[in-house]
């Protein structure tokens, strides 16, 4: 693990050592490719907030991912696979946290130059969550996790996927949720 070295905080950082401006890069890229109607990311002024009402050590935690189960016949989906739209899913899915299937992220635009998705624990932290439960840090995990489709219109996400996700989380009796986009 690489953390700041002793004394490193004292010096200024290079001016471009900042979080990548993904929206600007993406806009510029697709304009350069010749598309003239850039993607509009969802944007809100008001943000809801609900404080955690129970101690985490007693809470049941829900878990949501955008990773995809392996889809037979849809081509290479493993570590380092090229972007694979055939591996996408378009319905919210749920699966057991006790016996999770192998999940992959070939269907999304992760940084293929600097990482390879070879370790699922880097995008699907189920092992870490189980460890946190075993250590008493978290009361428990919901019996299932949920897979949220990507590459949807905001409208489909808001009108179909997200209300169904809420319904399932309520059914699971979760008191908080961890959401991990890939």
């Amino acid at each position: 693990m690489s953390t700041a070295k002793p004394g490193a905080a004292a010096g200024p950082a290079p001016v471009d050592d900042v979080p990548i401006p993904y929206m600007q890069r993406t806009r510029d890229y697709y304009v350069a490719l010749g598309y003239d109607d850039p993607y509009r990311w969802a944007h809100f002024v008001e943000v809801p907030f609900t404080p955690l009402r129970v101690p985490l050590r007693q809470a049941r935690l829900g878990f949501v991912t955008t990773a995809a189960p392996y889809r037979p016949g849809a081509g290479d989906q493993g570590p380092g696979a090229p972007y694979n739209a055939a591996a996408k899913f378009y319905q919210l899915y749920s699966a057991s946290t006790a016996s999770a299937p192998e999940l992959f992220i070939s269907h999304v635009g992760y940084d293929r130059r600097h990482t390879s998705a070879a370790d699922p624990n880097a995008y699907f932290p189920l092992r870490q969550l189980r460890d946190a439960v075993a250590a008493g840090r978290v009361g428990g995990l919901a019996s299932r996790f949920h897979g949220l489709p990507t590459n949807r219109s905001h409208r489909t996400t808001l009108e179909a996927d997200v209300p169904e996700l809420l319904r399932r989380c309520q059914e699971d009796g979760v008191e908080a949720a961890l959401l991990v986009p890939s």
Partner: protein
Amino acid sequence: MSLAARHLEAHGIPTVIMGCAKDIVEHCGVPRLLFSDFPLGNSAGRPFDVESQALTLELALRLLESAPAARTTVQSPIRWSSDPSWKRDYLDLTTLSPETLAERRREFDEVKAVARTRRAESS
């Protein structure tokens, strides 16, 4: 995923997102974000680095417990690399020739067609 966090939160379920695309998540506006300044695809920690993955989850859990208000972002102290030059490469236009851009456009149109077919199959 940001829209999901907002919806759950609005209906009484506190949420925390772990993510690597700080600007996109903050632009949407979410209750809590644990940001790791890593290449996209590593929201839960560095690959094959159990310590990093455990710390990433622990920071997210502390954020869940202690955020004072919406739009609270915590940045993980873990560095992907001591050399930040990897950040220049994502969709870097400066290295692409017109021919490469045309090829990328052709590939993108193909990918969109595949996605359309998949969506149609699924509906």
